[in-house]
């Protein structure tokens, strides 16, 4: 593998936290029934504990080979298996990027620019993200630091306008639906967390302990998401359940002195986060494609990745049923279960057996 771009583990944590926040800022899908905010808040820490458990094989696999990712581990065991895994991860990254672009386009055309065709947003946004991916992981990670600071500032601003008018009575009993509701949400959240796969892809790009980075990500994400969910719940109350884009609605209603309609702040922030997320996924998609085609064709790989992503996003956003189908597919947990749990587990066993045979010889 060529020399990796190295970023700090803090940058990795901030990237993953904002990716999770992006999902919340976009919309809360109707999949699997609506949970009450308090149940979601209770389930979230358990989802990360569960995630830590299911990622153990992957972390053990990567701990012994910090300069490579799961594909490198697979290539070392069997070149064909490595290429298959690279192809799967490539498709996964393109799918995740296309999903993000389509979510982004969906909010823009539904709430802000209803007259503008989707093609305009998909093409322009994908092109800009391709530029970010072309420049590399390091610049995008640096932009993310600014975006995180901007996000925290905006959150403080919105909180200052919403909290005085909030009613904490909307924070209902988290066990209202029983333990099964909490457990069900935790399981669903853990297995639909695409960022777990991304975390494994990040492994060779930062120095330091994998587990420390994971726990930093988990803790900060839980804190952020808990706060956002609480804000949505107490700020909008039951009205949130009827909103397709609850956080956007919250920002639109927020006002602080002469500052009204903070939804423009939301658009700006959300565009930045979407840019970072899609750029990172495009970058990793291109890196995975590099295992299948000659590495020197960097621009060609990026172009191919961009075209596939744009095409995928156009298909998904062409009909709300496709968007819902994609969300359902993500909610099944199969991509994360296969790519972040099953395959690393198989590779770990395989490498242990191979090492034992080597020692026996």
């Amino acid at each position, binding site marked *: 593998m060529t020399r990796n771009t190295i970023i700090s583990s803090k940058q990795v944590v901030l990237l993953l936290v904002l990716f999770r926040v992006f999902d919340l800022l976009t919309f809360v899908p109707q999949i699997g029934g609506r949970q009450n905010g308090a149940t979601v808040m209770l389930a979230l820490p358990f989802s990360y504990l569960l995630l830590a458990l299911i990622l153990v094989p992957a972390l053990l696999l990567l701990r012994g080979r910090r300069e490579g990712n799961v594909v490198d581990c697979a290539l070392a065991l069997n070149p064909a298996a490595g290429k298959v895994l690279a192809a799967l991860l490539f498709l996964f990254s393109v799918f995740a990027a296309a999903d993000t672009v389509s979510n982004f386009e969906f909010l823009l055309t539904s709430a802000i620019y209803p007259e503008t065709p989707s093609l305009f947003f998909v093409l322009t946004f994908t092109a800009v993200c391709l530029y*970010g991916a072309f420049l590399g992981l390091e610049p995008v990670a640096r932009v993310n630091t600014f975006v995180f600071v901007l996000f925290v500032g905006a959150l403080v601003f919105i909180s200052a306008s919403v909290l005085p008018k909030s009613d904490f009575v909307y924070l209902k009993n988290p066990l209202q639906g029983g333990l099964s509701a909490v457990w069900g949400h935790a399981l669903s959240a853990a297995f639909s967390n695409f960022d777990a796969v991304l975390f494994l892809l990040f492994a060779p790009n930062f120095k330091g302990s994998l587990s420390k980075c994971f726990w930093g990500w988990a803790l900060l994400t839980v804190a952020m998401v808990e706060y956002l969910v609480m804000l949505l719940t107490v700020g909008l109350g039951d009205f949130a359940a009827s909103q397709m884009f609850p956080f956007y609605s919250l920002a639109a209603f927020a006002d602080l002195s002469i500052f009204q309609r903070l939804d*423009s702040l939301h658009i700006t922030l959300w565009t930045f986060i979407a840019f970072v997320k899609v750029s990172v996924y495009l970058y990793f998609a291109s890196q995975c494609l590099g295992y299948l085609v000659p590495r020197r064709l960097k621009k060609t790989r990026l172009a191919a990745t961009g075209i596939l992503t744009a095409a995928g996003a156009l298909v998904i956003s062409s009909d709300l049923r496709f968007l819902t189908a994609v969300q359902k597919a993500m909610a099944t947990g199969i991509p994360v279960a296969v790519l972040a749990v099953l395959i690393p587990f198989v590779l770990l066993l395989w490498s242990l057996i191979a090492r034992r045979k080597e020692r026996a010889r």
Partner: protein
Amino acid sequence: MLFNRMERKLQRSAGAEYVKNSPPQGDDIRLGSDLTQNMINIRQYLHDTADFVNKEVLVCGQRVQLLTFEGMVSTANMTEALLEPLLSLRLENPTPQSLLWWMRNEAVLAPEQKEVYSLGELYKALMSGFVGVLIDGVDVAVIAGIQGFAYRSVSEPDSEVNVRGSREGLVEPIRTNMSLIRRRIKSSRLVFELTSAGSTSKTDLCLCYLANMVSPEILEDVRSRLARMDLDMILDSGYVQPFLDTNLSSLFSNVGVTERPDTVAAKISEGRVVVLVDGTPFALIVPYLFSENFQTLDDYAHRPYYASFIRIMKYVSFFFTILLPGAYVAIASFHPELFPEALLFNIAAAEETTPFPLMFEALIIHIIYEIMREAGLRLPRPIGHAVGIVGGLVIGDAAVTAGLIGAPMVMVVALTAISSFVVPSLYEPVTILRFLFIIVGGVSGLYGITLVLCIVFVNLCAINAYGVPATAPATPTKLFDLRDVLIRSSWKTLGRRTLRVQKLPGSEVGDKGGDI
């Protein structure tokens, strides 16, 4: 006649400069011991240029030629330091060698005195204001630095005005600039490394650095970039700057420019390399971080709370100047609901009567402003103030009264223009970005502006100036190093650890900074 015609044809086909009875060409031609032949070669090589002055004198019976270019030396100093000692010299055994020996070991003709052995070295010295002394019978020339050419005296720099700082600015002669810096860093580790560039102009360049602070990798990189410069003429530091810039595709340069010797001294003390160019008062600083565009020496003269306030205001002004017109166009065209009601009615009333869409209005008015700004720069001073009057009339009054543009747009232009002068070093990218944001805002609203901001940010974050991220220490972040970025901490905090540019977070350069 035929022969002459053939000769002329040969001259044209040669394509090079024509020299009758070609003298020895090339700067490596050694001086001979025959004074007459040396003089023939020199005159022919210089094409009998009118400003070349030579005077033959007899010193202890030996023929000596004094060579200089008119206006380059101080006549009074030359008489006192050179002519009088020479003409009053008495040697026991007057030979060319003994005269040379006396000049080498006993005479002090000038503080800078050395010997040259080739014509090229002699020409360069003469053209730098040295007096050349050729003795018949020796194949070496003695050069003495008795410069006396006219140059602008040290004065307050026009481009970087400070309230509390020094009033001295760099000047055109490189040696004077070196002395201005030396006076501020009285350290034995301060090194000036002279080199030259430009195949025709042979302009002197000077690399200035602190041997115990600079990174050897950065220094070597600068040296190799300067060595790769392939220009005929170097008349300004602007000619050299692109060769030092590591990221020409970016809007933002990672080479800093300053006219102040105190700023140069401050940058050198942080491990940077400064390049002085003879003939220009602007020094180049590498590597240069983005946050340094918002720092001035006045920040360190004020109290921290005020300096921090001014610093934050500069950042706000920067964003104002690039975003305000575009954001105004975007919001007024696509998101009018974002304006408070009263403001919205006023803007709508003002724009109702104007014939152009808001985007074109903004573009027209900003283009007019740029034309007037450029005209104001180039106009002679006595009539320069007329530009201000015309500008006020054309933009401020006549255009609004005629209904060509709305009054709110005039306010936007005024605020944008004033804000752009708060950070003058970023004027070039700011001007282009402003137009870009106006167009993008007019076409696609806040979405377009945000997307272009993404491109600008990632482009800026991709700049690695000699291995040091241009956005450091903001990102990659190191909290302690942020003590002089957005805010200016107290001297107690600033002095706790010396900043070394190669030790900034994300730096790919080794943090060595030992003596080299």
